């Protein structure tokens, strides 16, 4: 009874008690609200085209890289990208003394290595026969004793430089650039490949300014094309990105901050 009486009489104690009672849920709600979810990510839809003598074409099956920072911030890297010189596919295979039919097979199939297509029977004998494939097939057949398996597993029996030398050299140069970039920007480099229509999506990107490049020149019919572009990525969704793609082209576009380096493919020594 005495305590109840004191509470009733002492207004100060009561006020403090009620204050803390109300403060308790506010503290909880404040903590919950300050743990806000990460900022909404952004999306870039790339659309890559190039103009050649035969008209404007979509750049299919080429990999593009997303690097944190603007062109100015990545100046040293961009200089390195410009200086990186990859031998053309034809020159590489000629330097490896590859046969003419093999060079033609790679060109016709748009392949950087022999892995990109299954070798068909017609390339093992007859007018289209490829010398390198024939040799590898004979070795495979001697070991596997199965004609079909020998043909399918033929790439396993080719010399490394013929098998994937050009692709490996290109990847080595790209990996060197990526490693350097990642150590400078402290951010992983994201990459994506364009589809048949030259479209690629870079999703879940933290908003900010980025450099988008293919790092080494992409071979088209007669030229090598290198893109080094800048893009500010804002928090957006895929629907918006689909309506407004980022166009990359070798034609001048004042809307896109881009440096395009177009070099003619070199004439290789036969």
């Amino acid at each position, binding site marked *: 009874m005495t305590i109840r009486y004191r509470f009733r009489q002492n207004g100060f104690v009561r006020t403090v008690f009620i204050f803390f009672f109300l403060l308790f849920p506010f503290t909880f709600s404040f903590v919950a609200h300050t743990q806000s979810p990460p900022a909404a990510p952004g999306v870039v839809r790339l659309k890559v085209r190039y103009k050649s003598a035969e008209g404007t074409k979509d750049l299919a*099956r080429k990999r593009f890289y997303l690097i944190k920072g603007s062109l100015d911030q990545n100046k040293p890297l961009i200089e390195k990208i410009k200086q990186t010189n990859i031998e053309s596919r034809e020159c590489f295979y000629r330097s490896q003394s590859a046969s003419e039919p093999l060079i033609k097979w790679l060109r016709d*199939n748009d392949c950087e290595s022999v892995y*990109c297509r299954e070798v068909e029977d017609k390339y093992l004998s007859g007018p289209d026969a490829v010398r390198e494939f024939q040799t590898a097939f004979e070795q495979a057949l001697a070991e596997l004793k199965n004609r079909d398996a020998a043909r399918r597993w033929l790439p396993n029996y080719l010399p490394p430089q013929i098998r994937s030398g050009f692709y490996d050299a290109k990847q080595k140069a790209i990996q060197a650039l990526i490693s350097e970039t990642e150590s400078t920007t402290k951010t992983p480099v994201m990459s994506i490949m364009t589809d048949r229509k030259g479209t690629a999506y870079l999703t879940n990107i933290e908003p900010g300014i980025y450099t988008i490049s293919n790092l080494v020149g992409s071979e088209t019919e007669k030229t090598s094309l290198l893109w080094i572009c800048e893009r500010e990525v804002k928090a957006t969704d895929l629907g918006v990105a689909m309506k407004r793609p980022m166009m990359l082209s070798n034609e001048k576009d004042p809307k896109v901050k881009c440096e395009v380096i177009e070099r003619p493919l070199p004439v290789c020594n036969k």
Partner: protein
Amino acid sequence: MKDCSRRISLRSLASWRLCVGLFSRKDPKKRIGALFAICFCFAVIIAAQTRRRAPTTQRRPTTVQAARGSAAKYSAFLHSSEKHKSLTCNECHKIPTTWAAKRDFPDVADFPDHDACVRCHRAQFFTRQAMIGTGPAICTVCHVKAAPREERRFAFGKPNAADQQAKAKDERQFTIEFPHDKHQNVIARLDECHRLQSVRSESHHKLKSVPLDDKKPDYNNCSICHQTDMSLAIVALPAPNADPAMLHPFKSMPRTHDSCFNCHWKNEKPVAADCTGCHKAAPAFIAEPGRKRISAKFAHEGGKGEHVAECTTCHINITRAGTLRGLTPDVPINACAACHRESKKTTYPKAVTIEAELEQFKKTGECAYCHTPDVGQKKPPPSHETAVQ
């Protein structure tokens, strides 16, 4: 002591009475004020707690711990045990297998021979204790029954014979490491003039070039590994959707070494003998992921409409995936909207549009063209509305 306990109980009683007192006061204004204050506090708490959070994408794998500590534990082989981990793969597995495996290519096609087990586990095979009951439990790691003349073995991966029995639980002790991005670099090539047609045979899944014709081209070479999974028939949908293509909506995953060894038999790393190049030991058994139709009635092949887009047009993130961990099919509704939108009707006159389905939902309360009933009867998410705006 009595005084002390009485004082404590009086204090707690006082707190309670204070709360009760707020409502029992005679002044109704103060009582209402107090009631509002408390309601407000609760509302704030509820609002804070029910705030939408970003969904977590990672799912915990279903793991089942192997039995340990009993004689029966020898019937469950664990690659991840300390002793087994200390061995190299080819100390037990012959590469290629020399047993009567029926493959049309050299492969690790069967369990290791007896010597691989007996050299360490003699006691589990030949002691009197091991013979008690149904026989040595260790035999059932590979054999269907523990008996001296039992030759039948469980299927090792792909069965070597039609009557070969699979283990009761299809559980894997390894996760697979497969970088889609690197493989896309190498194989996802297409010359515009060189359309391809996927040709499936019994033994391999490579692509063959065929002349330009009306057949559906296969662009990304994904079908080297991913074929329509005819082994998995999804529970039949209601009558209007009785299209057979809808029963096999999913693509298969590689279950044999066939497609890998085309390039990785020797020389190109990881080679066939380097098992750990692709197979990473898991700490516990991983249940085979069960596939079920949750949401869409989509059929890759056939179906009501012909889906002619190349794989990466819809699976927009696959060419950047460096690992299988956390990999999801991730097809956004926007990918569907590219064709199934009102404005595209001129290009695909027969395509059912998302707009039409949204209208349908208003009338019938179900989006039945693309969705199964359990999902189609829910309110369409905002992403569907924005995709067609």
